[in-house]
């Protein structure tokens, strides 16, 4: 349940395209990285990736200032990328949960089932994780699949 909830809570930033517009998107995918120390997570646009580092354009708390963060691959425990915005079924979660209230005793069964199923429906859409994509293939989902060109300063990337 926690896994489902965490993937549901993955934010969907503005730069993610609808699934219909995936071929004209010019940005990298959204990546959420969990570090091995389990205390830190990093999220933002995947700018580039190679065998040594993830380069992520993170958003700070005020969500206006973006900053490049270099995350060493060896310190990463796992990652998830979202490459498109799916249809939003989040309203189904409370709606179906409320429906269980009409089930009387059977709500003991239907309430958790409704919760699990609607959360699953809302998770996993247009998502890859370290379990099903290699670092080499992950490059295709970066803003610069070829790596950051040498003429570009990291702090100039927005």
């Amino acid at each position: 349940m926690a896994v489902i909830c965490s993937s549901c809570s993955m934010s969907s930033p503005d730069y993610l395209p609808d699934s219909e517009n995936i071929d004209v998107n010019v940005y990298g995918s959204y990546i959420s990285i969990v570090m091995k120390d389990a205390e830190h997570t990093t999220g933002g646009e995947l700018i580039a990736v190679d065998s040594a580092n993830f380069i992520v354009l993170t958003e700070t708390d005020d969500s206006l200032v973006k900053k490049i963060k270099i995350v060493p691959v060896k310190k990463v425990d796992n990652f998830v990328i979202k490459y498109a915005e799916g249809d939003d079924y989040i309203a189904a979660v409370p709606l179906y949960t409320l429906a269980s209230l009409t089930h009387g005793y059977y709500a003991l069964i239907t309430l958790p089932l409704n919760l699990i199923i609607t959360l699953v429906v809302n998770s996993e859409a247009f998502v890859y994780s370290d379990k099903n994509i290699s670092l080499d293939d992950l490059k295709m989902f970066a803003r610069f699949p070829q790596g950051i060109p040498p003429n570009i300063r990291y702090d100039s990337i927005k």
Partner: protein
Amino acid sequence: MKTKKLIFNFALIIITFIAIEACETYYFRSNYKDANELLHRRDNSNVKPFLKAHLKNGDICIFRNTWNVDTVQNTVSGTGVRYDFNRNISSEGSILLSVDSVAIFETNKKLTGTGTGRVAALAILAAVDAGIGIACLTNPKACFGSCPTFYMNESDNFHYADAEGFSSAIAPSMEYYDIDALNNLPVTGNVFSLTMKNEALETHCVKDVKLLAYPRKKGERIYHSPKNEFYLCENIYSVSNAQVSDADITDLIRGEDRLERFSLADENNLSSKEEIFLNFDNVEDLNDLGLVIHFRQTLMTTYFIYSAIGYMGDEVGDIFAKIETSNDTDDKLKSGLGKELGKIDVYVRNEKNNDWELTDGLYETGPIAINRQILPLKNITSGSKVRLKLVLNKGLWRIDYVALTNIKGKVRPVEISPCSVLNKGKADNTALSSVIDPDKYLISMPGSEYKFNFILPQTGDDYELFLYSKGYYLEWMREQWIKDKDLLKLNQMVEHPAKYLRSEAKDYKIYEATMEQEFWNSKIDTKHFSYHEN
């Protein structure tokens, strides 16, 4: 189990459906390091995909489906948009690029129909939810419970409730106290806990919760009688033979196994009676015998309570106000429907007089927890055989167990008030003071759970335990009941119960045939609560 299985299977189908959908990998994106690779490896489909050219300087060009690669000039041309490295548009229209300026080409297949599986899964789930919802709204009596339920094991569900408190108290004026045998295992330690749950759409107003305890030695049991007396007993004589009409029901009522004997209601008259004949062939000591009986009701009385509220329709508030201010409500209920339905009357065979003599009756409202009571018998004639007859309303009672025992004497258990109350695992002193203070009520709302802790008098002793609960509950009016408003029928139910029970028989039979069976089929009957078997 049937309903549970059905819901589980539906859920399994939906989850599988979503899992397949979620696990589907969209191989929609391809990267090519040079133009030759792009031309040779790209699908030869008629529809040319949009082309992204990631330039070595960080810019990107997106060509619409009109792009061309000139292998002689080593260029890519077409119409599209060029963006800088921060993805601002730098030019639009015709674009001509040198292949050498391109770091990587990218093509993407269109993603279509990716949400179909999810929509289908939600649609199936909605259909299942609606189906269960309609079934419950049509026959709410089968899906919604009544009164507070008590559990020795807090993780148990209502199928394993150890007691249900004050089931008949559906208004403040009907408040009463209820005593239920907990049939507890030998006690270890001096702290005993009971969890009270509100598992229905009701407000429970609990005035008092106490534990009644009496020490027992090996081979002894203490039983509670319908007159709220307690008897210390020893020896158990199992029933040798039990008959209803021509049917042998001995196996059903010989053991404390939750395999219950019950009958269906008479299709013409809901107050029709039936007789169960019990033979005890090997009673070694005929002195001071008592009949131990484990029983509970079917959903028949729940049906009547919900029907009555339904008949009140939108006047339920006014009628309940009248009930509260009227002095004869209790009398009317006892002399009306209650009298027509009757108790489980126990008769003893007097061989000398060759007739049946009424001893007394047992009655407890509620279909959830099994009641375990004793009825002291009188006028047992000599010999080692005892013959009893139970007369009871058809379709109203479920009997799990009958046996005879010898009464050693009347005893008085000690009353123990809770020492602490836990609400969601945390001490709740307000709840504790509410149940201890005789002028206060603990208000329990749907979904609430309170764990009461009691300290037993003496560590190391074993105790027979009983629950004492006092209060009333308020049934939540449900929108679907308002359409059932029928004040004439309500009047008939209260003033002319015999006529009502005849006229309601057909409607009840429809309900009984579906929801009664469905509800109790979901019972999981593998768990044993018997003191003796553990």
